[in-house]
């Protein structure tokens, strides 16, 4: 399980390009920075009101300097602090080049469910609706299936929707999908998985990219 999360985060890191403004959700997305190439200079933004977050400090933790999850961060030169309304102004207005969010379910047409499991888990929506609405590119990270083996990539989400038609790409420990207006498309297989494996674990039909080759 720990491994799966690392595999997903490592693959997601390749979506982050030099010069991007990036917002990372809690959970698996928070592991992405560990896998960024040193040549990649990006500015991480967080919903509480910070742009240009640097690495987690090891000494002199400052209780007033954290990301949206409350974890300690640092600030790079050129970074800034601002209020949460401005933070979400950036998000809604499309200034986040890439938003990487954790997901509970994603439907074949890009609907995202990630805020509540009624009767069980009540985290609340946080800033996910705005990120899903405003980010230029939204990538959902999740393990491919529930612990009981049921698929999280589905025809229609059974969990309450966060935002409709927003997910552009799904990365799991088994595969990478893109979602276009037309279809859910399997683009890549992660090491050790075949198209058949993915088909057996996915709750929606998908097409296979013409460039995909099984190894």
């Amino acid at each position, binding site marked *: 399980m720990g491994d799966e999360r690392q595999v997903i985060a490592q693959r997601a890191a390749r979506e982050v390009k030099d010069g991007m403004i990036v917002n990372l959700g809690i959970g698996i997305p928070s592991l992405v920075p560990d896998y960024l190439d040193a040549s990649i200079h990006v500015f991480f933004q*967080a*919903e*509480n*009101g*910070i742009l240009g977050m640097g690495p987690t400090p090891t000494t002199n*933790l*400052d*209780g*007033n*300097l*954290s*990301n*949206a*999850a*409350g*974890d*300690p961060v640092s*600030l790079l030169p050129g970074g800034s*602090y*601002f*209020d*949460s*309304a401005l*933070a*979400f*102004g950036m*998000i*809604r207005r499309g200034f986040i080049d890439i938003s990487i969010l954790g997901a509970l379910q994603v439907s074949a047409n890009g609907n995202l469910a990630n*805020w*509540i499991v009624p*009767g069980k*888990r*009540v*985290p*609340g*929506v*946080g*800033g*996910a*609706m*705005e990120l899903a*609405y405003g980010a230029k590119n939204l990538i959902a990270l999740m393990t491919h299936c529930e612990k009981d083996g049921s698929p999280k990539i589905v025809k229609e989400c059974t969990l*309450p*929707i*966060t*935002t*409709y038609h927003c997910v552009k790409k799904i990365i799991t420990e088994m595969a990478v999908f893109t979602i276009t207006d037309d279809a859910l498309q399997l683009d890549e297989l992660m090491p050790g998985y075949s198209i058949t494996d993915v088909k057996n674990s996915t709750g929606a039909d998908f097409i296979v990219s013409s460039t995909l080759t099984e190894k």
Partner: protein
Amino acid sequence: MNIFEKVTSYEKIRPLFFDGMTLLFGGFGGVGTPPGLVDCLIESGAKNVHLIGNDAGFPWIGMGKFICLERATSLVASHIGSNPTAGDLMNLGKLKVEFSPQGILVERIRAGGVGLNGFLTEIGKGTKLEYDKQLVKVGDKEFLLESPITGDVGIVYARKADTFGNLIFDKTARNTNPYVAMATKVTIVEAEEIVPMGELNPEEIIVPGIYVKHIVPSKGYNWKWIWEMKDKSLRSERPAK
């Protein structure tokens, strides 16, 4: 009242909290929620409180401490995930929770604070968070109408205040605090440092003193405990009532 001298004591603040009030609180995950004023609220005995703020904090941090005492009737927030007790109280019907998307919530508080009567957005449309919000058609598109939020009392955490109530904040402890300050009738500020008028750079002032009613000195903040608790389970343990 001298509008240029607003510094007071927690003792004088305590009676300002009242049963049934709508209380807005600054802070994000507990960071920037004024700990001394939360304690003061607890001591005040106020109950049936309607809370509005970013989140339910942690059981020991932010507004979480007060929520766990079951003296809040309702909560408008973007999430309650870091405070399991809030979820329990919600499921037991003891706390009415209205979820609002995080950025929409702070924008609603701003709308109240700057005297606008609502705004339109597509965010949340067609989801459970639409609740019974009014839809407004503009051209051939339909938007959710989000209403402004104001409060009877607001509690705010600042890095520095001058005696008029001009405020500056510290890093990410700013978050929703400026708008809570603007949106409440009785805005109470807990400041790490209180200085005479003229000592703050007028260019750096984030909240002009016009919005502030009372200022108390902070006794220090407690939210770095969040990550100092190595045993993460402690983060969500409920305090004894």
